[in-house]
């Protein structure tokens, strides 16, 4: 673990809270921490005890997460982006430009029809066509990881056209 001042401060604050001696009002470990010096630091005692190793707080999430990005849907056996897909991706591109620390996994999915292997490749094509479109909008490739899940992770376990259309998709998940 990298003992940055921020983490040490958070650890100390947590130790204090656990001991009942602190006066922290917020659950430190789950509050998003802005890039400036943390509020926890102002509440730390002047002579800190030895820091206790605690799990690194989930404090590095940007205010906008991968789930803020819209899901993109596809036609049967297709990786072409239609008007609806492009509109969703235009909105996603804006969100990513506005949140330059937001890095995401681009996950390609398929409906259950066809073989595992073919759908694996089709999901890859879908994810790559989405990533390419976002790259063309100026979002650098190093902000993405592209993964195909083929037909392994359906959003809808049904076996009809409605379920299939919801499963032919590219989702954005935390990288």
């Amino acid at each position, binding site marked *: 673990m990298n003992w940055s001042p921020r983490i040490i401060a958070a650890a100390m604050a947590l130790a204090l809270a656990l001991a009942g001696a602190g006066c922290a009002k917020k659950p430190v470990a789950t509050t998003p921490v802005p890039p400036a010096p943390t509020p926890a630091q102002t509440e730390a005692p002047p002579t800190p005890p030895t820091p206790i190793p605690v799990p690194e707080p989930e404090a590095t999430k940007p205010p906008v997460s991968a789930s803020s990005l819209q899901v993109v849907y596809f036609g049967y056996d297709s990786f072409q982006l239609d008007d609806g897909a492009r509109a969703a991706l235009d909105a996603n591109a804006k969100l990513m430009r506005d949140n330059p620390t937001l890095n995401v996994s681009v996950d390609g999915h398929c409906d259950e029809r*066809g073989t*595992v*292997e*073919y759908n694996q*490749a089709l999901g890859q*094509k879908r994810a*790559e066509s989405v990533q390419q479109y976002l790259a063309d909008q100026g979002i650098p490739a190093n902000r993405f990881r592209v993964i195909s899940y083929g037909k*392994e992770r359906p959003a809808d376990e049904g076996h009809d056209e409605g379920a299939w259309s919801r499963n032919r998709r590219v989702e954005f998940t935390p990288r």
Partner: protein
Amino acid sequence: MRARPWPVAASLLALAAVALGLARAQSADVRINVKSGAIARLPLRCEAFQGQGSGPASSRDADDVLAADLQNSAVFNVERAWVSAANDPQPQFVTSGRWSVSGSTARLNGELRDFPGRRAILVQEYSSPVADWRRLVHRFADDCVQQITGERGIAESRIAFVVREGQNKELWVMDYDGHGARPLTADRSIVQSPSWSPEGSLLLFTSWRGGNGPAIWVMSPEQRKPYLVSGRPGLNTSASYSPDGQRVACTLSQDGNAEVYSLDARGGSPQRLTNHRAIDTSPCWAPTGRELAFTSDRSGSPQIYLMDSDGGSVRRLTFDVDYTDSPAWSPRGDRIAFVTRVGGGFDIWTCRADGTGAQPVLTGGNNENPRWSADGRHLVFASNRDGGYGLWVTDLDGALPRKLNTGGRRALSPAWSPRARPSPDTVSK
């Protein structure tokens, strides 16, 4: 960091075992020429083994395993003498034997004789630890098939498969008849497309273990320790060994699109075999190693194509049906099995290796992932033909497909091992 566990040693062991068996068996030269899988079944009567035993290795259990093996071989039509012989035609062959269990050792003196003369074709003693008694009976069954057809049976082979558990898939293996199913992975991840090495000691498979997308791994079912073969950026899927075990055909997307590649057995020195902006995947070797079948949607929908092993001479396999995928080349070399989409489901067809003679083998429901047995007489496949997904075997002589018992698990993506038996060989003659 990669496994090359003892294929040579395993092969030598198998050779030694076969040589030993041939040397000791009293054999008459009764052989029937077997071509292209299906033959007319030969009537055979299984007489109950004499002798005593107890528990899982009772002689009646052994009787039933032998009768099932010989019937499953698609070489014999088996009459169980201990059930009823009233209306059965006179057999051409008869099996019998003496069975005993003493301490931790099971012993079988098995006999195959012609009928009604009862001249000996095979008289052989087998022994094994009691726990491996089924393998002992499988060995006798395969010897019987070998004596009559000249080729070993497949009763000692195994089937690897994938079990879906919620959103996850794990790799499993079991005996060819569905017994002894056990998991090989517990990654709570996704596993796809298992494929055996030519000597039957290793399994290639695709897995998401590690969380970086699909990568190709290899594992010995005995050791259960996976080694990475290919974890390149993007797809690493659909892997299978060449018949000589020196190359691995697979699908990679490292060059920006799903293409078929040939790697060396450790995953290095990639050689790109396809070059098309369409999807190219699911490569499968001809038993000669000189050609591959693969799936491509370069004509608009998935179709099976053939190419030379250097990627040359690409040609479409068949024009008789539209939307074909999942090619599997018979170990005999003469036919290719595949799936074709019909309405909302998939049927399994075969055609000759030149694409002619396409005909349906299984219809109704979704019948997927056909894979051949080593003798080319059977296909194992995944199907929901009776409701939930499970594994089925069909003989190519028109017999009804039979469902393998996978304990109610949702079983998919089967792969039938070659004949070679896993080491250590616990059955002795």
